[in-house]
């Protein structure tokens, strides 16, 4: 299954605004996206509660994975989001 391993760049970690923007983007990806923490816990990336439940801080490494025709494109876009400080925009 296509996947990307990314370091979370947002200074506040993956919560609040960055978590909302990320899960909204995952929901629009067209394919189901899974977010997995370094500790190995996986959630539906499109669920804000799921994303928040992982408690991912700044600089933590996460993996996103997806299956389907558009998986590669979707993962590229989502990985770029995670690589960006989403709280600054």
């Amino acid at each position, binding site marked *: 299954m296509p996947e990307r391993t990314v370091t979370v760049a947002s200074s506040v970690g993956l919560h609040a605004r960055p978590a*909302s923007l990320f899960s909204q983007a995952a929901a629009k990806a067209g394919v189901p996206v899974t977010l997995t*923490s370094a500790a190995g816990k996986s959630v539906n990336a499109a*669920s804000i509660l*799921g994303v928040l439940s992982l408690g991912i801080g700044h600089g933590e490494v996460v993996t996103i994975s997806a299956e389907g025709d558009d998986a590669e494109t979707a993962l590229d876009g989502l990985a770029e989001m995670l690589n960006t400080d989403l709280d600054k925009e």
Partner: protein
Amino acid sequence: MSDETAPALTALLAEESIRLDEKADDKEDAIRQVGAALLQAGAIDASYIDAMLERERSVSTFVGEGVAIPHGTLAGKDSVKKDALVVLRFPDGVDWDGNDVRVCVGIAARGNGHIALLAQLATVLLDPDRAAALRAATTSDEVYELLKPDPEDE
């Protein structure tokens, strides 16, 4: 996630910070009430309430399951005197950008404390039965019971 260092949600929630029969005209009114409860708990300076409203303008804190989690921006951190939670229940609902919010969990946290708090709270709300019970809670004992750490999550 370093759960072992995070305080339990219930340890940060004073009984007088649980208000289960509130009414709000709109989202901003609800956030101001949440802020007032945090202020009365001695957790924040009044300027934190503006930071909460600013956060909400930047992005909605609605998280699903009829729950919103108003909290301040990073810039509002200096207004936090101690970590605390408040729970306000609005039985008639509050229109939150088209979403029906029944419960607001207000959060004040210094440093990165909010990440662990939000993770615990989200874990509770991911269980639809616990989320529904929180929306329907009428006593503070029920709220404490629902927010208690679940041993199965460890």
